[in-house]
């Protein structure tokens, strides 16, 4: 289990991580979702002690990461697959991890097999690796100590579709066996297919969190009418906040029934009324992060 409580990290006047609180539970895959630069990586570095938080605490299995006697066998970490000495071979990098953790030597070859790096590839220097191979090596390094907790930053980057599928099954298996998996991504689809719980972050702040099912059902209502302005006025009068979603429809947080009743009372004929879950997490993600997104593309 990973518990993060009120963690804040500033760089000068910029607050990269702002009062972030969430828990990644055992037996579940927690997806840490957010646009680029939202604070995902900084939060993960704070968990493992590479970055200091200005306030707040982060614990792994109930202890601060720095207090773990041999972190590698309790927490598998992959923060940046490219952060390796380019002159070492893949096998050597795994061997260093194996030695630091005090594991039997055979673990190195076992892990190379698990991540499907051939003996020939393992003997090559990392500077000649593709991003996908680095990613596999990084995952092998994270798994070599057979930890209960996995912390992976954008692990699917650079993997081919088969590789992504493989990683998904691997993480699923890990969680099903009682492990805790926290993985970040800026790609919704990835999180949607693998995560049980979702934590969404935008501009350093948590914008939403919960189980995937919960989040899907709180997506609200999508409503359409010939005269949108009139519909909006009617909803306002009924005390329902609605926002134009850009494609000639209105979006609200309330259930469809309330919207329908308000329209009926005002005598407005609706052309469409439905729960806004059809578009899945993507719409929600864009919506939830629109206000805090860097490029500010959304209205």
């Amino acid at each position, binding site marked *: 289990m990973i518990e993060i409580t009120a963690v804040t990290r500033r760089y000068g006047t910029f607050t990269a991580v702002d009062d972030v609180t969430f828990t990644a539970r055992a037996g579940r895959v927690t997806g840490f979702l957010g646009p680029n630069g939202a604070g995902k990586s900084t939060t993960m570095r704070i968990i*493992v*002690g590479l970055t200091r938080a200005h306030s707040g605490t982060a614990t792994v299995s109930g202890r601060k990461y720095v207090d773990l006697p041999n972190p590698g066998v309790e927490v598998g970490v992959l923060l940046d697959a490219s952060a*390796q000495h380019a002159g070492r071979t893949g096998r050597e990098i795994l061997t260093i*991890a194996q030695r630091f953790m005090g594991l039997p030597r055979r673990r190195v070859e076992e892990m190379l097999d698990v991540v499907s790096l051939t003996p020939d590839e393992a003997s090559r220097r990392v500077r000649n690796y593709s991003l996908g191979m680095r990613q596999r090596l990084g995952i092998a390094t994270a798994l070599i100590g057979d930890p209960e907790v996995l912390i992976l930053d954008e692990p699917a980057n650079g993997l081919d579709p088969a590789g992504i599928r493989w990683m998904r099954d691997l993480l699923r298996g890990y969680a099903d066996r009682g*492990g805790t998996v926290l993985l970040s991504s800026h790609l919704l689809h990835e999180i949607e297919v693998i995560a049980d719980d979702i934590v969404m972050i935008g501009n350093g702040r948590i914008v939403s969190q919960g189980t995937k099912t919960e989040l899907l059902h709180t997506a609200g209502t999508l409503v359409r009418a010939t005269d949108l302005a009139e519909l909006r006025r009617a909803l306002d009068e009924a005390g329902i906040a609605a926002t134009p979603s850009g494609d000639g429809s209105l979006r609200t947080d309330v259930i469809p029934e309330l919207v329908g009743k308000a329209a009926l009372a005002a005598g407005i004929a609706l052309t469409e009324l439905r729960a806004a879950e059809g578009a899945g997490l993507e719409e929600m993600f864009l919506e939830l992060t629109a206000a805090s997104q860097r490029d500010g593309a959304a209205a």
Partner: protein
Amino acid sequence: MTAVAAGTTLPARVPVRGIPLLRVTQVELRKMFDTRSGFWLIASIVITAFLATAGVILFAPDDQLTYATFVSAIQFPIAVILPMIAILAVTSEWSQRSGLTTFTLIPHRKRVISAKAISSVAVGVVSVLLAFVIGALGNLAGTGITGTALVWNISVTEFLYFVLGNVLSLLIGFMLGVLIRASAGAIAAYFVYSFLLPTIFGLLATSVAWFRDLQPWVDVQYAQSALFVLEGTLTGEQWANIAVTGMIWIVIPLAIGLGFVTRVEVK
């Protein structure tokens, strides 16, 4: 693309034991050799020692073919290479970004730095011992070729001074690596330390009268050079010079660098 090579449940947790410093040191020692650049840098000590030995045999006048001449010649490349080895042992964690893994596996960064210090000093001492062996071979070969008398004019004390002097100059490099944490910057700083500063101090000493007496107490190269003259034992004052300059130029900046290392963000 196989599934994880493990059972259907996570293995029962055995009590996790800490990582002993000896193990960290062994791994750090391994890391000094396991890249081509690291390997050849250390190998270059042996190679240049052989070259320097050959140079002495070829070019030194016959009456100077003594053990001390060989050792002094070998000293030149060693004095440059050892600090580089120490610098790169530290800075590669940042320059190559491998520190992301290292400091995640060993979150107590001072342990990593201590292990690097021990392994660097170990490499330094072994290198110097090797240099003495190569120098001895050179002395045997040189006098054999020229037919001059064998002269073993280095005492055990001088030998120990020599080892200590090299370890100290290696530690200067190590300190700069910890303080600067970037390969290029630390190497540049080392050359300022070992070539520019002594020159400035030397000029000051010749032009400013009162500085002449002060120089041994502030000029670390000047103070340590006493260890390399291979002429008898050092006086108490010379030891004090080494201790004071070592404090100013090695211990204090190293402590400051360690403070940075433990606080700085690893990215």
